[in-house]
């Protein structure tokens, strides 16, 4: 039977990554990832003023919630915690996801297109919330927020797999499930990896104007970057988003196109 999900247990041990040798959960870190001590923000005096201002505002000013109602915001926060989990981060070093999504929807900002099969983004979010609650009720007999972490993860994985659990068939007729999932993950990813703390985590050098990158070849770090120091970790036991094995195949009949231009 599912144990009740207690929101106050945020960051508890079973939701943190573990050391594969000992099986023990790793302590929350100020900076997860393989580049200990690397800080893009420490380089800000070498950035141009416009970039510095933009990035610092992102770190220091978290916009208020204006699009989502309180109930929607609470549910969205739970979804974001599954899509980009941050339980390995110390609470003060977690990156706000939902306020960024809310800000975009509040401003009515879109990426320049809408798929003909999709409702406008704001409606898509609201339909998605409705679908998730219907699935939770039908499959588990409870609201989403009362499900165990693992049940929540499994419900979301069924959306990821484009084989959603029962309960929201009518909604998926109005909104293709794979497009909804791509919208949700894209927005979460964009909020997380726009933050300089995420750049530090992955060893991305960040802004380099006007100083320049000098060591271009063979992955060499700049004098102010750091070399990688890897450690092994495994995803928390009650999570299903980091499957073992080489590949989770994308749905080849429904390729989820990225929005970014790369060439």
């Amino acid at each position, binding site marked *: 039977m599912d144990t009740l999900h207690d929101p106050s247990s945020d960051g508890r041990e079973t939701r943190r990554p573990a050391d594969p040798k000992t099986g023990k959960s790793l302590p929350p870190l100020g900076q997860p990832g393989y580049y200990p001590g690397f800080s893009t923000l420490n380089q800000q005096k070498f950035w141009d003023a416009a970039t510095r201002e933009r990035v610092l505002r992102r770190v220091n000013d978290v916009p208020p919630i204006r699009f989502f109602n309180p109930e929607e915001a609470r549910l969205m926060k739970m979804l974001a915690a599954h899509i980009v989990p941050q339980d390995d981060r110390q609470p003060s070093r977690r990156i706000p996801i939902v306020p960024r999504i809310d800000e975009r929807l509040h401003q009515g900002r879109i990426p320049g297109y809408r798929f003909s099969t999709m409702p406008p983004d704001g409606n898509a979010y609201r339909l998605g919330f409705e679908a998730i609650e219907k699935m939770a009720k039908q499959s588990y007999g409870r609201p989403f927020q009362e499900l165990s972490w693992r049940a929540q993860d499994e419900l*979301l994985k069924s959306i990821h797999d484009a084989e959603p659990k029962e309960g929201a068939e009518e909604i998926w007729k109005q909104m293709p499930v794979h497009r909804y999932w791509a919208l949700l993950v894209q927005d979460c990813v964009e909020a997380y990896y726009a933050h300089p703390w995420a750049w530090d985590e992955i*060893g991305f050098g960040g802004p380099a104007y006007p100083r320049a*990158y000098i060591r271009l070849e063979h992955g*060499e770090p700049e004098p102010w970057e750091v070399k*990688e120091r890897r450690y092994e970790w495994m995803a928390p036991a009650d999570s299903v988003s980091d499957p073992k094995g080489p590949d*989770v195949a994308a749905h080849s009949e429904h390729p989820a*196109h990225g*929005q970014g231009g*790369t060439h």
Partner: protein
Amino acid sequence: MQTIEFPMRRYSESEEIDYLIVGVGSAGGVLLQRLARAGFKVVGIEAGPFWDTERDWVSDEVGSHQLYWEDLRITGGKNPLTLGANNCGKGVGGGSVHWAAFTPRFHPSDFEVYTRDGVGADWPISYWELKPYYELLELEMPVAGPPWYPWGDPHSYAFGPHPMGGVGNTLVRGCTNLGIGVSVGGPVAILSGSRGKRPHCIYRGYCIQGCKVGAKASTLITHVPDALAKGAEIRDRSMVSHIYHDRKTNRVTGVSYLDQDGTEHFQKAKAIIVSGYAIETPRLLLNSACDGHENGLANSSDTVGRYLMAQAGNVILGRFDEPVRMYKAPPAHALTEEFYETDPNRDFARGFAIQTVGPLPIAFATQMMAARGCWGWGLRRIMMDYNHWSAFGLLGEILPWPGNRVTLAEETDQFGLRVAHVNFDLYDNDKKLIEFGKEKVEQVMRAAGATEIVQEARYAHLVGAARMGKDPATSVVDGFGRTHDIANLFVCDGSILPTQGSANPGLTIQALAARTADYLISQGTKIFNSDKRDMTSPPVRRELSPPGTHGTGVPRLR
């Protein structure tokens, strides 16, 4: 630092100007510069802002969204295209602000695809007619590249190639191990050494976020300053809503546009050139339907909006044991065109190129989401490995199909104008080409030493949708960009391309604009007061290049 001269010349709305250009992007910027230099009264009307690059642009993925066309469009079909950041610019400089700046020429074969392969279409002009303009624009941007480029019409570059980044290392290694030729350090419209007031590249990797450095060419910095100095006017943040047409004379008379406050203006002009790119150009022509042109301006052939093309732009990502750090150096710095031409041993026509790409973290995360289904802890894990991945782009030729088209949706935008609906499907030749190309790129990635390879299906660039041709029944414009239906209405941008090859279209678009400008200048006032169509090729006017560009390079005997 360079500065752009303000205030510029201002024309009054009641004054009938010579040329009105809709959209100051890759083509619009070059046209504006040439026509102003030749002494015409010319105004460019641009939907987006006039950028102050130091104040407005940032080294940041999310912070650069305003460079892209973000207004609503509906995208559908079996293989819907993503738009916005993927292929559409907004603001003075247009797409040339956010392109990666790969600048290969089209091959001679690209101009006669139908004759050679029985598919697609022939161009009304040959490679050799466009070649002098390729040479000019390569100096005006300028293009850095290797001393010898072996594919298509082999040629050299006057400006030296760039150093490689980590992605280039892997592409060169993979190609070399398989005996495939590879071009290193270009061709790319980025300065490898400083030139005049423009500084050289600093390899910060944010090319498609707009080059704050000023090393990457955009018409904003290569042609617009000269245009303004020679008396051109640009009205920015102004969205053209309608082209007006006089039924009695069958000529266009001017445009209405909405400024940033939503106020409507009307500007009279003797001739109009639409340079809005492959979606906004057909949209404006269709939205300007009127008596005598009920299906849209210049659309008697029912070709406006049709034959829209994007190139297959699959990204193949490979993980390496050693770090790559692909965020350094321009994403565009090495490529191979070894598979560009039709090969009778393959079961499809035409071919593809393989190019370096260097996705920054958000673009990479999005690719991993699509390519590998990453989310949750799996996403966090793969992202911690960001520095171990390299990325190659397939650039594959998709043929022009009538069903791939821009039409008007019922929905309207913030100005009350019907938005574009884009339909895109792949056909048999396209699918075979993509499958073969993907497999080849994966072979190269494997030969480079990648231990894990994944791929994301996507598309790059947009061309077609107002194609040029000799036959008015099957094309919108003639070989100089003049619409078959209306003698003083022109289209000059990526939308006039009949086919697209496997080369990035930016250089070709600017070269076509320079050629059209030479034609208009040769025709003089005949454009304004005659409906006769003179198809004589104009002389190449090298003296119209921005100062200090043409005539550089190695001295040669005359």
